[in-house]
């Protein structure tokens, strides 16, 4: 599964709209990930407050969404562009790649609830494909 020209355009157009709301999207995404899938909290045991909307969750949510927005600009070569981030996740953070699916799902939920009109089925499929490929690129250096 690779991104067609149509997918890339849909992703770029949609995320241009999303970018101004990055902080809110990030907060919704990470809050839901930690709350609805509590096993993900194991990666953040060093945080004081893991509840939805806490300052640490907000800050880190923004980091994650900024990463995704950055990846939009790297769509023509995700593996190459995300190499450093992949090394970070593989060697330092050592996040089980199964969690990429979980955070992607919650990102889709956040996007759907904040952009109900723009998140059409066509945008949905392109974004879903894009996030799957980002996850693959992030997992590149794992083994």
């Amino acid at each position, binding site marked *: 599964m690779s991104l067609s020209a149509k997918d890339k355009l849909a992703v770029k157009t949609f995320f241009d709209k999303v970018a101004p709301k990055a902080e809110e999207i990030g907060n919704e995404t990470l*809050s*839901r990930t930690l*709350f*609805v899938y509590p096993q993900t909290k194991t990666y953040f045991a060093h945080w004081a407050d893991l509840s*939805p909307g806490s300052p640490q969750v907000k800050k880190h949510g923004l980091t994650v969404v900024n990463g995704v927005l950055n990846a939009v600009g790297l769509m023509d070569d995700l593996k190459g562009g995300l190499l450093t981030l992949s090394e970070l996740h593989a060697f330092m953070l050592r996040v089980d790649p199964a969690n990429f699916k979980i955070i992607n*799902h919650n990102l*889709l*939920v*956040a996007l*759907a*609830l*904040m952009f*109900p009109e723009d*998140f059409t*089925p*066509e945008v*949905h*499929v392109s974004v*879903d494909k894009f996030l799957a490929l980002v996850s693959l690129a992030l997992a590149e250096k794992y083994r």
Partner: protein
Amino acid sequence: MVVWTDQERAFIQDIFSKLNYEDAGPELYCRVLIVYPWTQRYFGGFGNLYSAEAIKSNPMVAAHGIVVLHGLDKAMKNMDDITVLKGLEKALKNMDNIKNTFTALSELHSEKLQVDPGNFQLLGDCLTVVLARRMTTDFTPDIQAAWQKFLSVVISALTRQYY
């Protein structure tokens, strides 16, 4: 063994009470067939599924979405019955209901429709997106948590009769 809190039960019933099946059903099935096109393998008899536009205007797709939501509605109405319950009297009263509701449906999906159970998760994910779009900020994290739990119980019950 699934135990539902009163709050979870209320959340799920509230979601269904606010859901317009005639509207959400078609959207659900459009998304499933557009976002995960390999699911079209099960709908050879539905006619034209060759493009997003065709799928969106296909009356059989729309009708089937509504059928599936009514199936989930049945699950919601039998929530306490989906798996084994604590409390002997509840179990006695409802056990046959669970069996009938989900055994039959599971057998149907397994033996007659021959649907790969992996697809149940795909449909569940699309339905979550449909709900998020419609409820927006009312779809809070704790409501989502109850909803994901309900979905995983339904998916498990539907998969139960596969062998």
